[in-house]
């Protein structure tokens, strides 16, 4: 990442590739990521969209895109991308389009498709070395259908299917799948986590990924005002807090080698992050569930202790 055209927010391209007026929720945390993605790719892309919130970007007869868009079933976005990539390759080989006219193939899926339903087809696409981009907008549940639990739902979050009850007062009892590690174990050229609040970091990652041929995968943190029960104006602030509290580490892995691109100097207590969202309300109200908060905090500290050790980072981690 030595040579980059993105150094500050002023380097963000002004050219707009996503028209206003899409029917997603006000304050959606995914659309800033999508906009930046399009800016970084300079709009020269064809999109493959698995079922999810982004399906609604394109409700007939309106579209916010200025390029092509294909809609696939939940499980098959990478398969759709494979078909488009092959078609483009054949057209180039036959000389029907010039290599410099080539466009990029980009998959957009939500966490439901990426973590659960489409996991195997993505695994297959990475294994085949398909040259494509994959962007997951991870809002930690199936929010398009009413916020049911997905494989990405973190411990203690309340969703439509993991409501806190008398017997299970903490809400969701399982923990979030580590999709980054699942994908990294395939050793693809590029895997990274991004967050809508850290735009320069995101643009740099997309830029450095474009140097590689093969699967380029991005997992984006996505605050969801509708499902997380926070004010629409808080989306970016929550994303910032998630990074500062260490909940959402910003990292990249090139051919399986992990590097953290942003490390908070001092980890903020996770409580600050949890308190911003209604889906964690049951941890504080009516009674404070100290052991649950402590468990979440300890999990984060454990992660960062390991990172500090392996990457020789200077992070101040308080002892619990």
């Amino acid at each position, binding site marked *: 990442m030595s040579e980059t055209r993105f150094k500050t*927010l*002023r380097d*963000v391209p*002004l050219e*707009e590739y*996503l*028209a*206003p*007026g*899409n*029917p*997603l*929720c*006000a*304050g*959606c*945390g*995914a*659309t*800033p990521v999508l*906009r*930046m993605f399009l800016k970084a790719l300079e709009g020269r892309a064809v999109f493959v969209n698995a079922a999810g919130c982004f*399906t*609604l*970007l394109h*409700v*007939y*007869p*309106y*579209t*916010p*895109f*200025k*390029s092509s868009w294909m809609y696939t079933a939940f499980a098959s976005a990478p398969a759709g991308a494979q078909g488009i990539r092959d078609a483009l390759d054949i057209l180039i080989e036959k000389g029907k389009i010039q290599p410099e006219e080539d466009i990029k193939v980009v998959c957009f899926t939500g966490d439901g498709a990426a973590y659960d339903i489409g996991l195997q087809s993505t695994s297959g696409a990475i294994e085949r070395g398909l040259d494509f981009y994959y962007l997951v907008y991870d809002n930690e549940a199936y929010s398009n259908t009413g916020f049911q639990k997905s494989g990405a739902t973190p411990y203690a979050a309340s969703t439509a299917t993991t409501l806190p009850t008398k017997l299970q007062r903490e809400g969701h009892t399982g923990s979030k799948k580590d999709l980054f590690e699942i994908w990294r174990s395939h050793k693809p050229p590029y895997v990274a986590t991004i967050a*809508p*609040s850290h*735009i320069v970091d995101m643009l740099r990652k997309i830029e450095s990924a474009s140097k590689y041929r093969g699967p380029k995968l991005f997992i984006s943190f996505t605050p969801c*005002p*509708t499902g997380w029960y926070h*004010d*629409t*104006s*808080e*989306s*970016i*602030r929550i994303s910032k807090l998630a990074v500062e509290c260490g909940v959402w580490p910003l990292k990249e892995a090139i051919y399986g080698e992990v590097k953290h691109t942003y490390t908070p100097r001092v980890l903020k207590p996770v409580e600050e992050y949890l308190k911003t969202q209604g889906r964690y309300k049951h941890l504080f109200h009516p009674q404070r569930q100290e052991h649950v908060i402590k468990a979440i905090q300890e999990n984060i500290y454990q992660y960062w202790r390991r990172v500090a050790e392996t990457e020789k980072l200077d992070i101040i981690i308080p002892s619990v």
Partner: protein
Amino acid sequence: MANSQINSFILYLKIRAKAYIYKTRHPSFGCGVWSPMLKIRFHGRGGQGVKTSSRILGRAAFLDGFVAQDSPIYGAERRGAPVISFTRISKTPITERGFIFDPDIVIVMDETLLNDWLARPLDGVKKGGAVFVNAQPGFPPPEGHDDKFFITYDLTGRALEILGKPIISSPSAAAAAKITGLITKSSVLEATADELAELDLKDELLEKNIQLAAEVYDAIPSPVINTEESGSITREISPLDYEPVTYEEVIHLDIANLGNSALRRTGNWRIFKPVVDPEKCTGCMVCIIYCPDSCITLNENNKAVIDYDNCKGCMICLRECPLRAISSVREVRVYA
């Protein structure tokens, strides 16, 4: 005439006959409402509490000894998009299901919906029916609907004052209940408490909701709805004659225009609008970058300009502006 049509026509006659018998036996039923059933349709935007208000009304009617039915319908869109819900109130069991095409009462929870070609809240309202519009004082009733009662009240304004949130489920239900002329205040308040308690509201907020519902119930007049004349469905069904469409015409449609979503005008979704103070704005681009809807651009003087046609009013720009150059102003519109 197809067999099913004959059947449904016979059923219709039966219902009318039954209703007539009912009317003659119970002249006091419905305070002058001649109908086997009172149909109420709520129009609002996702997040306003449209579904909850129809539930509150249904429960209140049930508490008063009526048979009630309520159901919402959503499109393939979300918060901010038009939502409809239905309540049917009757003294006898309700056999009708589905959409209400010919409501006696329509509750419009967002005035901008009156001009929305997809929501069309005034479609099919019976002659002599009542239309409630949540609008600020001085709202002119729409033209061509002189045969209906128009009642307005600034629910959003009161909700913002009392609850601090633009959620108007309980006051809309209270307004609808008062307009029916059938449902008592105590039932409305009890239903509000029951329904909102199911949603796990804090006690403090619950009390404020009840206060607001009581206030609205008292403030709304109770018009005598007389929808007797129309009787059957008054909705105009457009005839099915069409001309063949050519390929060229199809291609000229919006589908061929890329990035045409700006025509949707999602600006109608917002209740507060962000306003940039050009004195303070330095053109630092932070709002432009974080705007989820690409609604902010820089003008020739290097100041942020907001596209109010499509800004949904999420206020991320206000929150993120490092110079606090953006303020929030209550939106005042008539049929935007």
